């Protein structure tokens, strides 16, 4: 089946690399779906995926070439690690192991809740360490445990921990806001980051990861190891901090590496650039010439793949950013903000106009009409007062009763426009007064001192009133709870009831209106109302 005799250890490595490649393809398609969906919904895509995937693709390609070379040229070799060939030094074990571990967490594992985001890094650490030791145990069972393996295992744990904590926090934004899926994605990519960083380090021949101990003192080696660790952690943190820049660099990197390898393959000679530039790091003399040719051809093939991938990424990453930087396209964040503001302003203006119209109708049909009637009554009484004083007195009484009714109507109208307690005392007292007037027992818990801006107070008051009225009318509740809490920059309102549930903002209840009105203040509304209750409505509005 295979034209070459192959060492049994090579099969293991081949399987690892093949799995890496399969996972890379799966992750690529998943990331593309996510990216498209985010763009369609006009949300910010999770940029961190692209640099990680780019690294992943590079690793898979690099690994497969190496495995093939080993299979072809060094089958039956029994010295050292299975990967101990000129093209893939022992450092290669670690990134491959880390990659596989990260992929296990990225693609096949089910989503984990945000508060368990340490589960995936833990899986990664265990898998990576297991692989490293398995590789060693399979191939060199008789040798004493090499120091660099211990270092590799500990380093894997540290890097996964750094990435897990940094990316996890970035994804959750420091608190439990935002989508849970984003959190999961963040934690998953965090697993792959260290592998990619190590991989890139190995490509650049930095040797940070596993310093060759045999020709250095232990102190120098340890220092180099620690420095390398810090540098890698910093790169991880940087990628997490500027994921968009990292995505751009990754795309450019794929194009660059791909183009280099294609050129190499095209010339049919290995390391054409090294030769051209006269670098001392050429192929070693022990490098057989046919191996160099194979390497060049294989390199050309995987270079083509990488180049295609990079070119495919360019319009998603580099081009939009370049257009923005050159001022040809507006910042997407600004565009989104402008759109939101336009929408909410239109809502605000039209709801204000509708409100004015309602007030005008109420005044026209109610107070104005009654005042006309009162005037007519008084006019008639004026004429009758001397000749028929009794009839005049009846008319005057009618006028007085009508004026009381006008007052009552005006009172109700004013309450609907701006409740007097709200004007006098502010939101906290007004909500307390509202709770007192509700026909259900209501627990009120308010942590709010000082006054807010009048428009904000009014919007929040009517939001609470609407939600509470809904609960009274539709929920068959026995008890309500209203909580108001102000944290720096945010006012949080929670209205709960123990009713039948089933409230739905899309179902034509007043909740949609509340949501729209709050949106004018960048506020949001969330409803949890399973059938059978309880119903919890949470509103959050930014406030100074």
């Amino acid at each position, binding site marked *: 089946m295979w034209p070459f005799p192959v060492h049994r250890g090579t099969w293991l490595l081949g399987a690892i690399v093949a799995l890496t490649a399969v996972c890379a393809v799966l992750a690529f398609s998943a990331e593309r779906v996510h990216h498209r969906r985010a763009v369609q919904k006009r949300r910010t895509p999770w940029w961190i995926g692209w640099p990680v995937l780019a690294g992943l693709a590079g690793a898979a390609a690099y690994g497969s070439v190496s495995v093939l070379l080993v299979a072809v040229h060094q089958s039956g070799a029994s010295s050292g690690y299975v990967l101990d060939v000129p093209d893939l030094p022992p450092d290669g074990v670690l990134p491959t192991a880390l990659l596989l571990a990260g992929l296990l967490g990225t693609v096949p594992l089910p989503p984990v809740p945000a508060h368990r985001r340490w589960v995936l890094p833990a899986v990664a650490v265990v898998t990576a360490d297991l692989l490293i030791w398995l590789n060693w145990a399979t191939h060199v069972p008789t040798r004493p445990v090499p120091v660099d393996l211990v270092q590799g295992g500990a380093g894997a744990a540290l890097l996964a921990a750094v990435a897990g904590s940094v990316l996890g926090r970035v994804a959750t934004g420091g608190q439990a806001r935002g989508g849970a899926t984003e959190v999961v994605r963040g934690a998953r990519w965090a697993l792959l980051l260290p592998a990619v960083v190590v991989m890139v380090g190995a490509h650049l021949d930095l040797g940070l990861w596993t310093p060759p101990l045999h020709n250095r003192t232990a102190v120098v080696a340890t220092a180099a190891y620690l420095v390398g660790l810090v540098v890698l952690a910093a790169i991880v943190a940087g990628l997490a901090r500027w994921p968009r820049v990292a995505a751009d660099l990754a795309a450019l990197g794929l194009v660059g590496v791909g183009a280099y390898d294609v050129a190499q393959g095209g010339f049919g000679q290995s390391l054409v650039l090294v030769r051209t530039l006269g670098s001392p790091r050429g192929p070693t003399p022990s490098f057989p010439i046919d191996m160099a040719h194979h390497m060049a051809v294989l390199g050309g093939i995987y270079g083509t793949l990488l180049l295609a991938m990079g070119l495919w990424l360019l319009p998603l990453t580099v081009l939009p950013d370049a257009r923005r930087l050159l001022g040809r396209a507006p910042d997407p964040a600004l565009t989104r903000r402008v759109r939101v503001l336009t929408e909410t302003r239109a809502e605000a203006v039209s709801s204000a106009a509708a409100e004015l119209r309602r007030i005008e109708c109420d005044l026209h049909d109610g107070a104005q009409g009654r005042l006309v009637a009162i005037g007519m009554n008084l006019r008639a009484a004026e004429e009758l007062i001397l000749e028929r004083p009794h009839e005049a007195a009846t008319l005057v009484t009618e006028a*007085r009763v009508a*004026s*009381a009714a006008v*007052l009552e109507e005006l*009172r109700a109208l*004013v*309450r609907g426009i701006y409740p*007097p*307690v709200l*004007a*006098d*005392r502010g939101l906290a*007292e007004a909500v*307390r*007064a509202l709770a*007192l*007037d509700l*026909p*259900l*027992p209501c627990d009120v818990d308010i942590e709010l001192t000082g006054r807010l801006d009048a428009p904000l107070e009014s919007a929040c008051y009517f939001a609470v009133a609407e939600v509470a009225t809904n609960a009274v009318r539709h929920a068959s509740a*026995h*008890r309500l709870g209203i909580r108001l809490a102000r944290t720096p920059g945010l006012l949080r309102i929670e209205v709960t009831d123990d009713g039948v549930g089933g409230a739905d903002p899309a179902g034509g209840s007043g909740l949609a209106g509340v949501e729209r009105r709050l949106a004018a203040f960048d506020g949001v509304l969330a409803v949890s109302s399973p059938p059978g209750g309880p119903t919890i409505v949470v509103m959050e509005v930014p406030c100074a």
Partner: protein
Amino acid sequence: MRVVVAEDLFLLREGLVRLLKARGFEIAAATDSAPGLLGALLEFRPDLAIVDIRLPPTHTDDGLRAALTARERLPGLPILLLSQYVERIYAEELLADRAGGVGYLLKDRVFSDDQFVDAIRTVAAGGTVMDPSVVTKLLDRRGRDAREPLARLTERERQVLELMAEGRSNSAVAHRLFISEKAVSKHSTSIFAKLGLAPSDDDNRRVLAVLAYLMSVPRDGRAG
């Protein structure tokens, strides 16, 4: 009887002054702002203050605050609040010291000058007067649940309770319901027994007890 009037609407203030003078009250001062009210109260120490809740300078509840401040300095100073709105929260603040001599009425009650003058005299005498709209709201709120003691009152007892909560004396209640004063007293004993309140002969203490009962949170937490 010397009265201080605080009302920022010129027409209403003049109307009040004219009405009070015609009924034989002496106007110690008529002011249009909260600081003016506080100054007048402390200077003239009147027998009664008639105060609009919403007054300059801030046009919020300045009148109420000034009146409560004056009452702290001059304990027992009778205060009759007038407002376009009756808010339960303000009624509670007014009643908080349980000393009596307070009233809280809608401005339109001024239309009916006999009732208004009755209210003035009750408050000045240390009694308590509550606007019927507050009392109706309180009774509605507490009266919906069948397990509430309020639901066990007869229709007549409920009427008596309502008038009592508004601050009327036994004789006024009797007059209003066209029953004898003795019958009112019988009803009120029965009401107090059903609500579990301590009986009292003092009109004002009885009013305060009823109001406190109505404003309290329902005991078992289920009653509306």
